[in-house]
């Protein structure tokens, strides 16, 4: 009886750690699409054994998805999973990809991108990542501005508004989080519209161009997400990926 109770408690702990691993993976984003790997269907397996060894397998929409972004996702997943309390050993790997061997070896060795792709890369991926967070800021700007306009706010007033004036909710907090990542102004009292590179407030004469770029960037990001989801489904027909709008 005692033994059974002990095993039951152990199984409970393992289930809790497994659940925490899935939650951790939910914080890892595809840097291009700005969506969690778990929503995109990119996590094919995440398990933890009673000893705390976490095994995670990732899959992507195509065999030839860009290796730099693939590396970021595997490395970020490794960092997120290894930080989960109760995980004693982390095994994260990408399947079915032309550069899987180099990526998996490099991430497991904590080697960085340049060392993982010797001779093929000259720098780490921080600048690439930041470029795509800036795109996420623009796309997020379109989301919150559309909500404001739908609420009857006049377009010309947008440069005078603050982030706190945007409707409360997930879109605003997502935009705030991306701005924070880039060290851009992100408090409620900061301008609603900022240049994603300099952080300077957008001036009225820049409004049309800024909103045009924001809409375009969101369209691009969402169209890419649609293509990626469709390709993943065509590649792995048995999986049930959550469908985005459109």
């Amino acid at each position, binding site marked *: 009886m005692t033994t059974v109770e002990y095993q039951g408690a152990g199984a409970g702990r393992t289930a809790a750690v497994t659940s925490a691993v899935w939650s951790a993976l939910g914080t890892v984003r595809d840097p*291009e699409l700005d969506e969690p790997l778990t929503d995109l269907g990119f996590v094919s397996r995440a398990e933890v054994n009673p000893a705390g060894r976490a095994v995670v397998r990732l899959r992507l929409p195509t065999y*030839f998805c860009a290796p730099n972004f693939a590396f970021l996702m595997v490395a970020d997943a490794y960092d997120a999973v290894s930080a989960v309390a109760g995980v004693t050993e982390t095994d994260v790997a990408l399947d079915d990809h032309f550069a899987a061997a180099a990526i998996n070896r490099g991430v497991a060795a904590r080697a960085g*991108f340049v060392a993982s792709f010797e001779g093929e890369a000259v*720098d780490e991926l921080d600048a690439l990542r930041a470029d795509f967070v800036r795109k996420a800021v623009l796309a997020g700007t379109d989301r919150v501005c559309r909500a404001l306009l739908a609420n009857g706010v006049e377009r010309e007033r947008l440069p005078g508004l603050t982030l706190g004036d945007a409707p409360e909710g997930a879109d605003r907090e997502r935009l705030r989080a991306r701005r924070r990542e880039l060290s851009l102004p992100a408090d409620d009292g900061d301008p609603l519209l900022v240049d994603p590179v300099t952080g300077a407030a957008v001036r009225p004469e820049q409004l049309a161009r800024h909103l045009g770029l924001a809409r375009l960037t969101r369209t691009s990001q969402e169209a890419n997400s*649609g293509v990626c989801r*469709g390709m993943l489904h065509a590649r792995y027909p048995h999986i049930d990926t959550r469908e985005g709008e459109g």
Partner: protein
Amino acid sequence: MYTKDGEKYFVVDGHTHFWDASPENWVPGQEEYAKGWIECFHAYQGLGPADTHWPLDRFQKYSEELMMHDLFEVGHVDVAIFQPTNLRQWYTNGFNTTEANAALSEKHPGKFRVNTYFDPREGDAGMRAFEERVKRYGCKGVKLYTAEWRGDSRGWSLKDPEAAKYLEKCEELGVKNIHVHKGPTIWPLDKDAFDVSDIDYVATNFQGLNFIVEHVGLPRIEDFCFMATQERNVYAGLAVVVGGLMHARPKFFAKVMGELMFWLGEDKLIFGADYAIWEPRWQVEGFVDWQMPKDEELSDFAPLTVTQKKKILGLNAARLYDIEVPADLRLDEAPVVEPVGVPGP
């Protein structure tokens, strides 16, 4: 030609292929890549209507008869432009070469235009061979795949000084249409492989050439559109946009078409079915039937007119390639329309 509701559309398919990706053509030791490439293409086909999906073996290698049927008998295509993708590192006889395309073209006079390629990594010998191909096949265009692997190289950039020599040769030979196709690898790998700034650079330097960016720079539509507003000689190839989005993601298709009309305008958009990834028939018929939905999110975008669709489906490409359009299929007058766009800072 396609006729609908009394309107006649002259159809130029600006992006077609005759490929061989059958296992017999895989280079020993490179099978993984050859297989991965064609399976990736096959997955793209999955974004089209289910009744147009092919089994993988047919998709790997299809017959001349099937291609002629799909394009010209039922696909409404008047003229198709071959865009080669060599990939000789993975496929013994190449994946989709100028030579294979030209052989098919010769059997069917007037149906095709044969584009070739250049690769600045091929040096002086490559330059001579390029000139020979252009003269032999009467090429008016090239298709450049900058992510192509060659030895240890994972790709090249149009900014490379060697590329400029080839573009000068294009000007000299009258090869005025430069189709650029971005892929997932370049050197160095830490940069964004889909970045279009190299096209911006050469479009500025070579004003006499037209640069047609295939699949509208997807996955970088935003960078592409913004670049295109600043360059008069940059065009959008609609391969993948129509095939990959119109059926599978109609709302995003509407948004992307809206953005393309907004930033580039109706004279800069070039239809391409991207056969054999997608058959032209459903794309041509679907595009003629398609209209911008009346949706709040799409309220910035105007409906497409019949004239605009005629330009996009064929008349724009006919202009770039000097293709004779029968008198009854031309527009009464063809004013060049400026994109709406947004002026720079």
